[in-house]
Protein backbone atom coordinates (compact mmCIF):
# COMPACT_ATOMS: atom_id res chain seq x y z
CA UNK A 1 0.00 0.00 0.00
CA UNK A 2 2.72 2.47 1.03
CA UNK A 3 4.69 1.43 -2.04
CA UNK A 4 1.77 2.21 -4.36
CA UNK A 5 1.18 5.66 -2.82
CA UNK A 6 4.89 6.50 -3.09
CA UNK A 7 4.95 5.22 -6.66
CA UNK A 8 2.12 7.53 -7.74
CA UNK A 9 3.61 10.54 -5.94
CA UNK A 10 7.03 10.14 -7.49
CA UNK A 11 5.70 9.15 -10.92
CA UNK A 12 3.67 12.38 -10.88
CA UNK A 13 6.74 14.40 -9.77
CA UNK A 14 8.75 12.75 -12.55
CA UNK A 15 6.25 13.63 -15.29
CA UNK A 16 5.71 17.14 -13.89
CA UNK A 17 9.49 17.68 -13.87
CA UNK A 18 9.76 16.49 -17.48
CA UNK A 19 6.97 18.84 -18.62
CA UNK A 20 8.50 21.72 -16.67
CA UNK A 21 11.83 20.97 -18.35
CA UNK A 22 10.23 21.68 -21.75
CA UNK A 23 8.21 24.71 -20.64
CA UNK A 24 10.96 26.64 -18.79
CA UNK A 25 12.70 29.25 -20.91
CA UNK A 26 15.82 29.56 -18.84
CA UNK A 27 18.40 26.81 -19.42
CA UNK A 28 19.30 26.55 -15.73
CA UNK A 29 15.67 26.04 -14.71
CA UNK A 30 15.38 23.31 -17.36
CA UNK A 31 18.53 21.66 -16.05
CA UNK A 32 17.15 21.74 -12.49
CA UNK A 33 13.89 20.15 -13.70
CA UNK A 34 15.95 17.39 -15.27
CA UNK A 35 17.60 16.79 -11.88
CA UNK A 36 14.12 16.41 -10.36
CA UNK A 37 13.25 13.86 -13.08
CA UNK A 38 16.47 11.90 -12.39
CA UNK A 39 15.86 12.00 -8.65
CA UNK A 40 12.28 10.73 -8.87
CA UNK A 41 13.37 8.01 -11.32
CA UNK A 42 15.85 6.91 -8.65
CA UNK A 43 13.00 6.66 -6.13
CA UNK A 44 11.04 4.52 -8.61
CA UNK A 45 14.06 2.18 -8.90
CA UNK A 46 14.17 2.04 -5.12
CA UNK A 47 10.49 1.08 -5.01
CA UNK A 48 11.17 -1.66 -7.55
CA UNK A 49 13.66 -3.13 -5.09
CA UNK A 50 16.87 -1.99 -6.77
CA UNK A 51 18.65 0.22 -4.19
CA UNK A 52 22.06 -0.07 -5.87
CA UNK A 53 20.71 1.10 -9.22
CA UNK A 54 18.77 3.91 -7.51
CA UNK A 55 21.87 5.26 -5.75
CA UNK A 56 24.00 4.97 -8.90
CA UNK A 57 21.29 6.93 -10.72
CA UNK A 58 21.58 9.67 -8.09
CA UNK A 59 25.40 9.71 -7.94
CA UNK A 60 26.10 9.44 -11.67
CA UNK A 61 23.15 11.15 -13.35
CA UNK A 62 21.64 13.57 -10.83
CA UNK A 63 25.08 14.24 -9.34
CA UNK A 64 28.00 14.08 -11.75
CA UNK A 65 26.42 14.48 -15.18
CA UNK A 66 23.90 17.17 -14.24
CA UNK A 67 26.57 19.13 -12.37
CA UNK A 68 28.47 19.27 -15.66
CA UNK A 69 25.29 20.53 -17.39
CA UNK A 70 24.77 23.25 -14.78
CA UNK A 71 28.50 24.04 -14.84
CA UNK A 72 28.43 24.52 -18.63
CA UNK A 73 25.31 26.69 -18.49
CA UNK A 74 26.91 28.86 -15.80
CA UNK A 75 30.18 29.07 -17.72
CA UNK A 76 28.48 30.11 -20.99
CA UNK A 77 26.26 32.49 -19.02
CA UNK A 78 23.33 31.38 -21.20
CA UNK A 79 20.36 33.74 -21.03
CA UNK A 80 16.66 33.15 -21.54
CA UNK A 81 15.66 31.35 -24.72
CA UNK A 82 13.50 33.05 -27.34
CA UNK A 83 10.15 31.39 -27.92
CA UNK A 84 9.92 30.45 -31.61
CA UNK A 85 6.97 29.26 -33.63
CA UNK A 86 8.52 25.82 -34.12
CA UNK A 87 9.95 24.40 -37.32
CA UNK A 88 8.03 22.65 -40.08
CA UNK A 89 10.45 19.70 -40.04
CA UNK A 90 9.71 19.11 -36.34
CA UNK A 91 5.99 19.13 -37.10
CA UNK A 92 6.23 16.76 -40.09
CA UNK A 93 8.72 14.28 -38.61
CA UNK A 94 8.08 14.78 -34.91
CA UNK A 95 4.35 14.08 -34.79
CA UNK A 96 4.52 10.59 -36.35
CA UNK A 97 7.62 9.77 -34.29
CA UNK A 98 5.89 10.77 -31.05
CA UNK A 99 2.79 8.82 -32.07
CA UNK A 100 4.95 5.75 -32.79
CA UNK A 101 6.63 5.95 -29.36
CA UNK A 102 3.29 6.32 -27.58
CA UNK A 103 1.89 3.41 -29.65
CA UNK A 104 4.80 1.12 -28.72
CA UNK A 105 4.50 1.97 -25.01
CA UNK A 106 0.74 1.37 -25.03
CA UNK A 107 1.23 -1.92 -26.91
CA UNK A 108 3.80 -3.15 -24.37
CA UNK A 109 1.64 -2.08 -21.43
CA UNK A 110 -1.45 -3.82 -22.85
CA UNK A 111 0.45 -6.97 -23.79
CA UNK A 112 2.02 -7.20 -20.36
CA UNK A 113 5.65 -7.72 -19.41
CA UNK A 114 7.16 -11.20 -19.88
CA UNK A 115 8.76 -10.89 -16.44
CA UNK A 116 6.52 -10.54 -13.40
CA UNK A 117 7.76 -7.35 -11.76
CA UNK A 118 5.66 -5.87 -9.01
CA UNK A 119 6.39 -2.88 -6.87
CA UNK A 120 7.58 -3.96 -3.43
CA UNK A 121 7.86 -7.63 -4.36
CA UNK A 122 11.30 -7.79 -5.90
CA UNK A 123 14.72 -7.67 -4.27
CA UNK A 124 17.74 -6.86 -6.43
CA UNK A 125 20.78 -6.22 -4.26
CA UNK A 126 24.26 -5.13 -5.25
CA UNK A 127 25.73 -8.62 -5.63
CA UNK A 128 23.00 -9.80 -8.02
CA UNK A 129 23.59 -6.74 -10.22
CA UNK A 130 27.32 -7.53 -10.20
CA UNK A 131 26.75 -11.20 -11.06
CA UNK A 132 24.51 -10.25 -13.99
CA UNK A 133 27.05 -7.71 -15.29
CA UNK A 134 30.10 -9.96 -15.02
CA UNK A 135 28.53 -13.27 -16.07
CA UNK A 136 25.49 -13.02 -18.34
CA UNK A 137 26.13 -9.59 -19.83
CA UNK A 138 29.94 -9.57 -19.74
CA UNK A 139 30.38 -8.96 -23.48
CA UNK A 140 27.97 -5.99 -23.75
CA UNK A 141 29.50 -4.55 -20.55
CA UNK A 142 33.06 -4.75 -21.90
CA UNK A 143 32.02 -3.44 -25.33
CA UNK A 144 30.39 -0.46 -23.63
CA UNK A 145 33.54 0.29 -21.65
CA UNK A 146 35.64 0.14 -24.83
CA UNK A 147 33.14 2.51 -26.47
CA UNK A 148 33.48 4.97 -23.58
CA UNK A 149 37.28 4.69 -23.77
CA UNK A 150 37.16 5.55 -27.49
CA UNK A 151 34.91 8.52 -26.71
CA UNK A 152 37.37 9.76 -24.07
CA UNK A 153 40.27 9.42 -26.51
CA UNK A 154 38.26 11.29 -29.15
CA UNK A 155 37.61 14.10 -26.69
CA UNK A 156 41.34 14.29 -25.86
CA UNK A 157 42.27 14.44 -29.55
CA UNK A 158 39.72 17.20 -30.21
CA UNK A 159 40.88 19.19 -27.21
CA UNK A 160 44.57 18.92 -28.13
CA UNK A 161 44.29 19.88 -31.81
CA UNK A 162 44.70 23.59 -31.17
CA UNK A 163 48.24 23.25 -29.87
Amino acid sequence: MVHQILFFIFAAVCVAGAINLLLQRHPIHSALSLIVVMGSLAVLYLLLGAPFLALIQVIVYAGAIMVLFVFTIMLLNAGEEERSHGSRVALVLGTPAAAAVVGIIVYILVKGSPVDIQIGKFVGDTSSVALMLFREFLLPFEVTSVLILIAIMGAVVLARREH
Partner: protein
Amino acid sequence: MSQLLVDIILLLLKIVIITHVLLGAVAYTVWLERKVIGRMQNRWGPTRVGPFGLLQPIADGLKFIVKEDMLPPGVNKPLFVAAPLIAVALALTSLAVIPFGETITLFGRVIPLQIAGFWDKTAGAIYDPGVGLLIILGATSIGVYGIALSGWSSNSKYSLLGSLRASAQMISYELSLGLALVGVIMMAQTLSLRGIVGQQAGGIGHWNFFGGGWQILGFFIYMIAAYAETNRIPFDLPEAETELVAGYHTEYSAMKFAMFFMAEYANMFTAASVATLLFFGGWHAPHPALEFGAPGTIPFALGQVFWFAAKIFVFIFVYIWVRGTLPRFRYDQLMAFGWKVLLPLAILNVVVTAAVVAVRMAH
Protein backbone atom coordinates in the same frame (compact mmCIF):
# COMPACT_ATOMS: atom_id res chain seq x y z
CA MET B 1 0.94 -0.11 20.19
CA SER B 2 1.74 -1.58 16.83
CA GLN B 3 5.36 -2.09 15.88
CA LEU B 4 5.10 0.37 12.97
CA LEU B 5 3.90 3.20 15.23
CA VAL B 6 6.68 2.50 17.75
CA ASP B 7 9.26 2.51 14.96
CA ILE B 8 7.97 5.83 13.62
CA ILE B 9 8.02 7.48 17.08
CA LEU B 10 11.54 6.16 17.74
CA LEU B 11 12.63 7.39 14.31
CA LEU B 12 11.34 10.92 14.97
CA LEU B 13 12.94 10.99 18.43
CA LYS B 14 16.26 9.84 17.01
CA ILE B 15 16.11 12.46 14.23
CA VAL B 16 15.44 15.28 16.74
CA ILE B 17 18.11 14.19 19.21
CA ILE B 18 20.86 13.39 16.71
CA THR B 19 20.30 16.52 14.61
CA HIS B 20 20.49 18.70 17.72
CA VAL B 21 23.61 16.95 18.97
CA LEU B 22 25.25 17.43 15.59
CA LEU B 23 24.31 21.10 15.28
CA GLY B 24 25.55 21.69 18.84
CA ALA B 25 28.79 19.93 17.95
CA VAL B 26 29.05 22.10 14.83
CA ALA B 27 28.69 25.28 16.91
CA TYR B 28 31.37 24.15 19.34
CA THR B 29 33.66 22.99 16.53
CA VAL B 30 33.70 26.60 15.35
CA TRP B 31 34.68 27.62 18.90
CA LEU B 32 37.34 24.90 19.04
CA GLU B 33 38.69 25.94 15.66
CA ARG B 34 39.00 29.61 16.69
CA LYS B 35 40.61 28.59 19.96
CA VAL B 36 43.10 26.10 18.51
CA ILE B 37 44.03 28.26 15.53
CA GLY B 38 44.45 31.15 17.94
CA ARG B 39 46.90 29.20 20.08
CA MET B 40 48.78 28.02 17.00
CA GLN B 41 49.16 31.66 15.93
CA ASN B 42 50.21 32.74 19.42
CA ARG B 43 46.99 34.55 20.36
CA TRP B 44 44.06 33.76 22.62
CA GLY B 45 41.03 33.23 20.40
CA PRO B 46 37.59 34.00 21.88
CA THR B 47 37.82 34.81 25.63
CA ARG B 48 35.17 37.46 26.32
CA VAL B 49 31.85 35.59 26.34
CA GLY B 50 31.73 33.16 29.25
CA PRO B 51 34.68 31.19 30.73
CA PHE B 52 37.25 30.39 28.00
CA GLY B 53 34.83 32.04 25.55
CA LEU B 54 32.61 28.99 25.87
CA LEU B 55 29.41 30.98 25.31
CA GLN B 56 30.75 32.48 22.08
CA PRO B 57 28.83 30.00 19.82
CA ILE B 58 25.56 31.04 21.51
CA ALA B 59 26.35 34.72 21.02
CA ASP B 60 27.22 34.01 17.38
CA GLY B 61 23.97 32.08 16.88
CA LEU B 62 21.94 34.97 18.33
CA LYS B 63 23.78 37.39 16.07
CA PHE B 64 22.97 35.30 13.00
CA ILE B 65 19.28 35.30 13.95
CA VAL B 66 18.89 39.02 14.69
CA LYS B 67 20.98 40.39 11.81
CA GLU B 68 19.15 41.82 8.82
CA ASP B 69 18.54 39.22 6.11
CA MET B 70 19.48 41.18 2.99
CA LEU B 71 18.39 40.28 -0.52
CA PRO B 72 20.75 42.01 -2.97
CA PRO B 73 19.16 43.48 -6.14
CA GLY B 74 19.42 41.41 -9.33
CA VAL B 75 19.47 38.01 -7.65
CA ASN B 76 17.41 35.09 -8.92
CA LYS B 77 15.21 35.00 -5.83
CA PRO B 78 13.87 31.40 -5.75
CA LEU B 79 17.31 29.88 -6.37
CA PHE B 80 19.06 32.38 -4.07
CA VAL B 81 16.78 31.29 -1.22
CA ALA B 82 16.85 27.60 -2.12
CA ALA B 83 20.65 27.27 -2.42
CA PRO B 84 21.54 27.43 1.31
CA LEU B 85 18.59 25.15 2.08
CA ILE B 86 19.85 22.56 -0.42
CA ALA B 87 23.36 22.79 1.02
CA VAL B 88 22.33 22.29 4.65
CA ALA B 89 19.57 19.74 3.95
CA LEU B 90 21.87 17.44 2.00
CA ALA B 91 24.66 17.85 4.52
CA LEU B 92 22.26 16.62 7.21
CA THR B 93 20.86 13.80 5.00
CA SER B 94 24.08 11.82 5.29
CA LEU B 95 23.57 11.80 9.04
CA ALA B 96 20.57 9.47 8.67
CA VAL B 97 22.62 6.45 7.64
CA ILE B 98 25.68 6.90 9.88
CA PRO B 99 25.70 4.27 12.66
CA PHE B 100 27.49 5.30 15.85
CA GLY B 101 27.09 2.14 17.92
CA GLU B 102 25.33 -1.21 17.96
CA THR B 103 22.15 -1.09 20.06
CA ILE B 104 20.97 0.39 23.34
CA THR B 105 18.24 -1.27 25.43
CA LEU B 106 15.94 1.31 27.01
CA PHE B 107 12.63 0.41 28.74
CA GLY B 108 12.80 -3.11 27.33
CA ARG B 109 13.12 -1.91 23.76
CA VAL B 110 16.20 -2.54 21.65
CA ILE B 111 17.09 0.66 19.81
CA PRO B 112 19.80 0.63 17.12
CA LEU B 113 22.16 3.61 17.40
CA GLN B 114 21.51 4.91 13.89
CA ILE B 115 18.64 7.03 12.52
CA ALA B 116 17.90 4.71 9.59
CA GLY B 117 18.36 1.54 11.63
CA PHE B 118 15.43 -0.58 12.82
CA TRP B 119 15.36 -3.52 15.18
CA ASP B 120 13.92 -6.62 13.56
CA LYS B 121 12.43 -8.55 16.50
CA THR B 122 11.80 -11.83 14.67
CA ALA B 123 15.27 -11.98 13.14
CA GLY B 124 16.92 -10.52 16.25
CA ALA B 125 19.06 -8.28 14.04
CA ILE B 126 19.36 -4.65 13.00
CA TYR B 127 17.86 -3.69 9.66
CA ASP B 128 19.86 -0.87 8.10
CA PRO B 129 20.13 0.33 4.49
CA GLY B 130 22.33 -2.13 2.60
CA VAL B 131 23.74 0.66 0.45
CA GLY B 132 24.46 3.10 3.31
CA LEU B 133 27.83 4.17 1.94
CA LEU B 134 26.31 4.99 -1.46
CA ILE B 135 23.63 7.11 0.22
CA ILE B 136 26.38 9.25 1.77
CA LEU B 137 28.18 9.56 -1.57
CA GLY B 138 24.87 10.42 -3.28
CA ALA B 139 24.04 13.14 -0.74
CA THR B 140 27.56 14.56 -1.17
CA SER B 141 27.25 14.65 -4.95
CA ILE B 142 23.84 16.38 -4.83
CA GLY B 143 25.14 18.82 -2.20
CA VAL B 144 27.28 20.47 -4.90
CA TYR B 145 24.12 22.15 -6.24
CA GLY B 146 23.78 24.24 -3.08
CA ILE B 147 27.16 25.84 -3.80
CA ALA B 148 26.79 25.93 -7.60
CA LEU B 149 23.36 27.59 -7.50
CA SER B 150 24.27 30.07 -4.75
CA GLY B 151 27.05 31.48 -6.91
CA TRP B 152 24.99 31.62 -10.06
CA SER B 153 21.87 33.13 -8.49
CA SER B 154 23.82 35.82 -6.58
CA ASN B 155 24.44 37.83 -9.76
CA SER B 156 27.97 38.67 -8.61
CA LYS B 157 31.26 37.87 -10.32
CA TYR B 158 32.99 36.76 -7.12
CA SER B 159 30.17 34.40 -6.24
CA LEU B 160 30.04 32.96 -9.75
CA LEU B 161 33.80 32.40 -9.88
CA GLY B 162 33.68 30.79 -6.45
CA SER B 163 30.90 28.41 -7.37
CA LEU B 164 32.51 27.52 -10.72
CA ARG B 165 35.68 26.62 -8.84
CA ALA B 166 33.68 24.67 -6.28
CA SER B 167 31.81 22.64 -8.90
CA ALA B 168 34.96 21.81 -10.87
CA GLN B 169 36.87 20.93 -7.71
CA MET B 170 34.14 18.75 -6.26
CA ILE B 171 33.56 16.81 -9.51
CA SER B 172 37.31 16.21 -9.85
CA TYR B 173 37.89 15.05 -6.28
CA GLU B 174 34.68 13.02 -6.03
CA LEU B 175 36.24 10.44 -8.36
CA SER B 176 39.31 9.91 -6.18
CA LEU B 177 37.11 9.96 -3.07
CA GLY B 178 34.85 7.19 -4.38
CA LEU B 179 37.75 5.08 -5.71
CA ALA B 180 39.64 5.37 -2.41
CA LEU B 181 36.70 3.68 -0.68
CA VAL B 182 36.49 0.84 -3.24
CA GLY B 183 39.43 -0.94 -1.60
CA VAL B 184 37.59 -1.19 1.72
CA ILE B 185 34.35 -2.20 -0.01
CA MET B 186 36.13 -5.04 -1.85
CA MET B 187 37.67 -6.29 1.38
CA ALA B 188 34.36 -6.11 3.25
CA GLN B 189 32.21 -7.45 0.36
CA THR B 190 29.38 -5.15 1.46
CA LEU B 191 28.20 -1.55 1.13
CA SER B 192 26.42 -1.58 4.49
CA LEU B 193 28.22 0.65 6.99
CA ARG B 194 27.24 -1.69 9.84
CA GLY B 195 28.60 -4.63 7.88
CA ILE B 196 31.92 -2.89 7.26
CA VAL B 197 32.31 -1.90 10.93
CA GLY B 198 31.23 -5.36 12.14
CA GLN B 199 34.20 -6.93 10.37
CA GLN B 200 36.65 -4.66 12.20
CA ALA B 201 35.73 -5.85 15.69
CA GLY B 202 38.45 -7.09 18.05
CA GLY B 203 40.87 -4.24 18.52
CA ILE B 204 43.26 -2.07 16.58
CA GLY B 205 44.83 -5.00 14.68
CA HIS B 206 41.52 -5.62 12.87
CA TRP B 207 40.90 -2.06 11.71
CA ASN B 208 41.05 -1.62 7.95
CA PHE B 209 43.81 0.98 8.28
CA PHE B 210 46.04 -1.50 10.13
CA GLY B 211 45.98 -5.30 10.09
CA GLY B 212 42.38 -5.56 8.85
CA GLY B 213 43.22 -4.48 5.32
CA TRP B 214 46.31 -2.26 5.27
CA GLN B 215 44.25 0.38 3.43
CA ILE B 216 46.80 3.07 4.35
CA LEU B 217 47.06 4.48 0.83
CA GLY B 218 43.26 4.37 0.46
CA PHE B 219 42.84 6.26 3.72
CA PHE B 220 45.20 9.07 2.81
CA ILE B 221 43.65 9.45 -0.66
CA TYR B 222 40.21 9.55 0.98
CA MET B 223 41.27 12.15 3.53
CA ILE B 224 42.87 14.45 0.94
CA ALA B 225 39.83 14.16 -1.35
CA ALA B 226 37.52 14.77 1.61
CA TYR B 227 39.34 18.01 2.44
CA ALA B 228 38.74 19.12 -1.15
CA GLU B 229 35.08 18.01 -1.04
CA THR B 230 34.43 20.02 2.11
CA ASN B 231 36.26 23.08 0.69
CA ARG B 232 38.68 23.23 3.60
CA ILE B 233 42.21 24.58 3.62
CA PRO B 234 44.42 23.73 1.69
CA PHE B 235 41.65 23.33 -0.90
CA ASP B 236 39.41 26.27 0.03
CA LEU B 237 39.71 27.96 -3.38
CA PRO B 238 35.93 28.42 -3.74
CA GLU B 239 36.04 30.94 -0.90
CA ALA B 240 39.62 32.21 -1.21
CA GLU B 241 39.35 35.53 0.63
CA THR B 242 42.36 37.12 -1.02
CA GLU B 243 40.94 36.65 -4.51
CA LEU B 244 37.16 36.24 -4.25
CA VAL B 245 36.03 38.23 -1.17
CA ALA B 246 34.20 35.18 0.25
CA GLY B 247 33.50 33.16 -2.89
CA TYR B 248 30.10 31.61 -3.38
CA HIS B 249 28.56 33.05 -0.20
CA THR B 250 29.74 36.66 -0.71
CA GLU B 251 26.18 37.99 -1.14
CA TYR B 252 24.62 36.03 1.71
CA SER B 253 23.87 37.48 5.13
CA ALA B 254 22.38 36.48 8.49
CA MET B 255 20.84 33.01 8.73
CA LYS B 256 21.37 32.13 5.06
CA PHE B 257 25.11 32.63 5.53
CA ALA B 258 24.95 30.60 8.73
CA MET B 259 23.36 27.75 6.76
CA PHE B 260 26.38 27.50 4.46
CA PHE B 261 28.57 27.51 7.53
CA MET B 262 26.52 24.72 9.11
CA ALA B 263 26.61 22.74 5.87
CA GLU B 264 30.41 23.00 5.68
CA TYR B 265 30.91 21.82 9.24
CA ALA B 266 28.26 19.09 8.98
CA ASN B 267 30.10 17.84 5.89
CA MET B 268 33.32 17.77 7.90
CA PHE B 269 31.57 15.59 10.46
CA THR B 270 30.27 13.27 7.72
CA ALA B 271 33.76 12.96 6.21
CA ALA B 272 35.21 12.22 9.65
CA SER B 273 32.48 9.63 10.31
CA VAL B 274 33.11 7.82 7.03
CA ALA B 275 36.85 7.74 7.75
CA THR B 276 36.14 6.36 11.23
CA LEU B 277 33.65 3.73 10.04
CA LEU B 278 35.61 2.52 7.05
CA PHE B 279 39.22 2.72 8.18
CA PHE B 280 39.34 2.99 11.97
CA GLY B 281 36.92 0.41 13.29
CA GLY B 282 33.91 2.67 13.87
CA TRP B 283 32.66 2.35 17.44
CA HIS B 284 35.07 -0.48 18.43
CA ALA B 285 37.62 0.29 21.12
CA PRO B 286 41.35 0.07 20.23
CA HIS B 287 41.55 -3.01 22.47
CA PRO B 288 38.68 -5.31 23.59
CA ALA B 289 39.67 -4.66 27.22
CA LEU B 290 38.81 -0.98 26.78
CA GLU B 291 35.12 -1.65 26.06
CA PHE B 292 32.85 -0.59 28.93
CA GLY B 293 30.76 -3.18 30.79
CA ALA B 294 29.23 -6.33 29.35
CA PRO B 295 27.68 -6.46 25.85
CA GLY B 296 23.98 -5.48 25.91
CA THR B 297 24.18 -3.14 28.90
CA ILE B 298 23.71 0.63 28.75
CA PRO B 299 27.36 1.48 29.73
CA PHE B 300 28.53 -0.78 26.90
CA ALA B 301 26.37 1.11 24.37
CA LEU B 302 27.48 4.50 25.71
CA GLY B 303 31.09 3.30 25.61
CA GLN B 304 30.71 2.57 21.92
CA VAL B 305 29.31 6.06 21.34
CA PHE B 306 32.28 7.42 23.33
CA TRP B 307 34.86 5.64 21.16
CA PHE B 308 33.08 6.75 17.99
CA ALA B 309 32.94 10.37 19.20
CA ALA B 310 36.60 10.24 20.30
CA LYS B 311 37.72 9.14 16.83
CA ILE B 312 35.57 11.84 15.20
CA PHE B 313 37.16 14.40 17.53
CA VAL B 314 40.64 13.37 16.41
CA PHE B 315 39.69 13.83 12.75
CA ILE B 316 38.07 17.23 13.44
CA PHE B 317 41.20 18.29 15.34
CA VAL B 318 43.36 17.26 12.38
CA TYR B 319 41.11 19.36 10.12
CA ILE B 320 41.82 22.38 12.33
CA TRP B 321 45.50 21.52 12.64
CA VAL B 322 45.86 21.35 8.86
CA ARG B 323 44.10 24.71 8.55
CA GLY B 324 46.61 26.22 10.94
CA THR B 325 49.55 24.68 9.07
CA LEU B 326 49.16 24.59 5.30
CA PRO B 327 48.86 27.43 2.78
CA ARG B 328 46.26 27.37 0.02
CA PHE B 329 46.92 25.58 -3.29
CA ARG B 330 47.03 27.48 -6.56
CA TYR B 331 44.09 26.55 -8.82
CA ASP B 332 46.16 24.79 -11.53
CA GLN B 333 48.08 22.92 -8.80
CA LEU B 334 44.77 21.77 -7.34
CA MET B 335 43.51 20.38 -10.64
CA ALA B 336 46.84 18.82 -11.62
CA PHE B 337 47.16 17.20 -8.20
CA GLY B 338 43.63 15.79 -8.32
CA TRP B 339 43.82 14.31 -11.81
CA LYS B 340 47.50 13.46 -12.23
CA VAL B 341 48.46 12.28 -8.74
CA LEU B 342 45.44 11.41 -6.63
CA LEU B 343 43.35 9.63 -9.28
CA PRO B 344 46.16 7.33 -10.57
CA LEU B 345 47.08 6.48 -6.97
CA ALA B 346 43.43 5.66 -6.21
CA ILE B 347 43.24 3.39 -9.27
CA LEU B 348 46.50 1.73 -8.22
CA ASN B 349 45.01 1.10 -4.78
CA VAL B 350 41.92 -0.48 -6.35
CA VAL B 351 43.98 -2.75 -8.64
CA VAL B 352 46.35 -3.92 -5.90
CA THR B 353 43.51 -4.53 -3.41
CA ALA B 354 41.53 -6.42 -6.07
CA ALA B 355 44.54 -8.65 -6.74
CA VAL B 356 44.99 -9.35 -3.02
CA VAL B 357 41.30 -10.12 -2.55
CA ALA B 358 41.33 -12.43 -5.60
CA VAL B 359 44.40 -14.32 -4.33
CA ARG B 360 42.84 -14.63 -0.87
CA MET B 361 39.61 -16.01 -2.35
CA ALA B 362 41.46 -18.52 -4.51
CA HIS B 363 43.12 -20.04 -1.41
